[in-house]
């Protein structure tokens, strides 16, 4: 900190500069530098790593240029006043220290602004020198699409808000800032469309966010856990997405987005069950393929949750439900196997989880190879060693693959880990157990609410006109109304008529 030593030691005791520097004692990346502008003694205070050096130099340059504009020297005090007015005109963000105190300068310094302090005049200016550099906008890793925009959110909140605003150019798009985290002072933005979103839900989001009192928020999941409706439920009641197009679609449906600084994952609320089975690509595909894919995804959810349990139940308790040739075949595969099917299932599921986790944490270059090779080799070897049956390997592999059909990462995990209790239930009680487990899950889902919206809506309670975006994805010319649960204020979203070729009699060709 070579420049810190330049500071004046002769500052008076109640000098705001001293007070500020005391707050930042043993903060060696804090720089204070003297500067003389229009004959006034000022001081620049900033965090060296947080600012953009070029921006600061440019501002300094323009300030020293002011020195050429000599005001008339008639009255000493008036002159100083004039100088101050000039500065205020030149620089935005003037703060009177008498009114706001030194504390008001702390947050700006921490977020990368430079403070220009005039101690004698008890006046400070905030110079916008924040370094907005960061990761460039990239294609997100989760939520991949074949057709659709390729940009994804980044860690900087300003860039993320820019990505949203670029898509929704409306004065009704409201952004409210709130700073959370006693230590991290993370900037959070509540974003919503005022003419669509339900004011009650926006208010509820505000209220819940204001209740947060925590040291640090490093990821949006902190917020999700702190404000979600059912803290003990494994099911997510808020959706997180990395794609701006997805978030904008949610905003257009009347949802509220919560953008957190430092993470590319933006939360939306309220979220309902069916939403987690929808990919944003559904809306970019044709209505028919998208509808089919939705059903396949629902099937995938069932398979991911129930297939291992189903296999265990049918092979240990309900053998009479198998076809005879299949039964004989399975019996042949299972000849001389030492462990019960339930143990096999657990062993294989566990192995897959281990391999998957290893593949995730490993450096990317070898991660993929390990996941595939590991699963194949271990599965094959386990079958040959006589530890598990060949069919079990198929079942576990299909289950594991199927989980990735689901578009939402949080939901994948729920589906995967629900399969474990289902496995135990199936092993002990057979289909009875599976049905029981399913009923518990359904009852639980029915009891959930997300910011006042029933989790299973629009299926239950039934809103038939919203089903066109649930059981199938209607073509856009049919999607004229929003789901009444989330966007009560303004339900109509389209008046486009059904597309049709021109009538040759009335309109003529073309």
């Amino acid at each position, binding site marked *: 900190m070579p420049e810190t030593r330049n500071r004046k030691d002769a500052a008076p005791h109640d000098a705001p500069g001293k007070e500020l520097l005391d707050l930042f004692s043993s903060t060696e990346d804090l720089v204070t530098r003297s500067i003389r502008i229009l004959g006034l003694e000022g001081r620049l205070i900033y965090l060296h790593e947080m600012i953009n050096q070029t921006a600061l130099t440019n501002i300094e340059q323009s300030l020293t240029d002011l020195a050429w504009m000599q005001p008339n020297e008639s009255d000493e005090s008036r002159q100083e006043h004039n100088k101050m007015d000039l500065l205020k005109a030149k620089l935005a963000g003037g703060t009177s220290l008498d009114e706001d105190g030194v504390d008001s300068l702390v947050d700006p310094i921490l977020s990368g602004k430079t403070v220009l302090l005039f101690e004698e005049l008890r006046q400070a200016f905030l110079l916008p020198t924040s370094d907005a550099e960061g990761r460039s906008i990239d294609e997100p890793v989760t939520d991949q699409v074949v057709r659709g925009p390729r940009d994804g959110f980044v860690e900087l909140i300003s860039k993320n808000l820019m990505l949203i605003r670029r898509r929704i150019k409306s004065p009704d798009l409201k952004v409210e800032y709130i700073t959370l985290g006693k230590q991290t002072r993370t900037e959070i933005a509540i974003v919503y469309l005022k003419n669509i979103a339900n004011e009650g839900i926006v208010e509820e989001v505000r209220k819940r966010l204001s209740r947060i009192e925590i040291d640090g928020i490093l990821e949006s999941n902190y917020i999700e856990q702190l404000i979600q409706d059912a803290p*003990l439920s494994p099911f997510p009641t808020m959706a997180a997405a990395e794609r701006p197009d997805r978030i904008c679609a949610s905003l257009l449906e009347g949802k509220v987005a919560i953008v957190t600084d430092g993470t590319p994952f933006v939360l939306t609320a309220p979220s309902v069950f069916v939403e987690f089975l929808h990919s944003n690509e559904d809306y970019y595909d044709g209505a028919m393929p998208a509808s089919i894919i939705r059903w396949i995804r629902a099937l995938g959810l069932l398979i991911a949750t129930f297939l291992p349990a189903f296999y265990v139940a049918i*092979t*240990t*308790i309900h*053998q*009479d439900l198998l076809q*005879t*040739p299949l*039964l*004989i*075949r*399975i*019996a*042949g*595969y*299972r*000849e*001389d*196997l030492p462990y*019960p*099917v339930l143990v096999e299932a657990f062993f294989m599921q566990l192995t897959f989880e281990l391999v998957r986790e290893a593949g995730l944490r490993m450096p990317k270059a070898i991660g993929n190879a390990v996941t595939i090779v590991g699963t194949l080799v271990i599965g094959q070897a386990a*079958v*040959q060693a*006589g530890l*598990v*049956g*060949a069919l079990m390997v198929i079942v576990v592999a299909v289950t594991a693959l199927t989980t990735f059909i689901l578009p939402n990462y949080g939901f994948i995990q729920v589906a995967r880990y629900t399969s474990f209790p289902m496995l135990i*239930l199936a*092993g*002990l*009680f*057979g289909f*009875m*157990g599976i049905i*029981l487990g399913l009923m*518990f899950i359904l009852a639980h889902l029915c009891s959930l609410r997300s910011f006042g919206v029933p989790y299973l809506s629009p299926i239950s309670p039934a809103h038939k006109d919203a089903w066109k975006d649930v059981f199938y994805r209607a073509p856009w010319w049919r999607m004229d109304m929003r789901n009444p649960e989330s966007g009560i204020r303004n339900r109509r979203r389209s008046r486009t008529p059904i597309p049709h070729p021109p009538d040759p009699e009335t309109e003529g060709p073309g």
Partner: protein
Amino acid sequence: MSRLANRLRGAVAAAISLLLVLPLAGCWSTTEINDLAIITVLGIDQNEHGEFQVSALVIRPSNISQGGLGSGFSGGGDNPSYVVAEAVGDTMFQAMQKLSSTLSKRMYWSHLQAIVLGRKAADEHSVTILDILMREQQFRKNIDVLVTKGKAVDIVKTKPHLEGSLGAEIHGIIKYSKHTATTIVQDISHFASSISSSGIDHITGEISSTADRGSSISEDGTKTPSLNITGSAAFKEGRLAGFLDRVETRGVLWIVGQVKTGSTKMSCPEGNGNGISLEITNARSSRIPKKTADGISMKVVVDIEAEIREIACDGFELNPDRMDQLNEQLENTIMDEMNHALKKAKEEWQSDVFQFGTTIYKKYPKEWKQLRASWREGEFRRMKVELEVRAQIKRAGLIHDSIRVDERR
């Protein structure tokens, strides 16, 4: 905090109610598949001492699914894919218990594909056997029950030709012999309902391994007889009444209206050739009971549509007059078949395999009450049965007349 406590209480309640399922689930004892002795054919005989002799065909799965990586041995040609286990006991249950003690796995009956009754067992014990078949939940009620003229164990021991196990083989034979419309095979539930009904007598397939109806020839030229449904076994009040051959069986099938498709043969009108083959494409029949002065009589009307499949008669010309003649001939052929069946079952055995009793009961329940007591002691035999057949040959294929050799050549 109290909300969390509530939830915890809910979780405990859930766990308790889960435990309550334990007694609810009737079959909560789990068995691994490899601990099951899968039995696909069950043979029941009566031996000289009047005891039950039970023979079961147990699958050896490792030899059937040879690609099974999990199995230590790869299944050789010498190791048959099944084992026939046999046991004797005073009762069926006892015999089955003894059978179980000779097997290293749990007997598993749910995948049984056929039950074969030996002649003596079918004659004397069919009701007893039916009791355990209906009582035990592992026996599916749609398993076919067949009768053999000899001992059931000989059928169970037969080597399957095409399938890996005899169960599948018998199942396939039953399934595809239906198309010939000369067999009738009934399952346990039919067996039970017809034996306990006064207006029907049971009839089911008769299986035998015969060389004359078909056999498989191995590479060294030896013929192995193949299994066949050679006819049917008619019952009378729970006892075996007698056997019908395939033509007589079809006579029964015409009357009860169970022919859907099938083939038949007529002799050449001029007697100069091997005959004409026909395919029956559609058949309907109705039994109409009628009150007459001397009691109730029965009218059976059969409607048939057929197609000509083959003409093996010299110089045969097909023209509309000939068609009428052929129709009439077909009617007579079918009439003959029905008469044969009626003669045996009605006149000789007084076994109501034609379900005439039920038909009368449905139309004249009061009269049936009086008839019922002496139905099988004369009333059935005395009842007049009037037959009417309406046959229509609809198509003759791509050519009309039979192919002629040009003699000028």
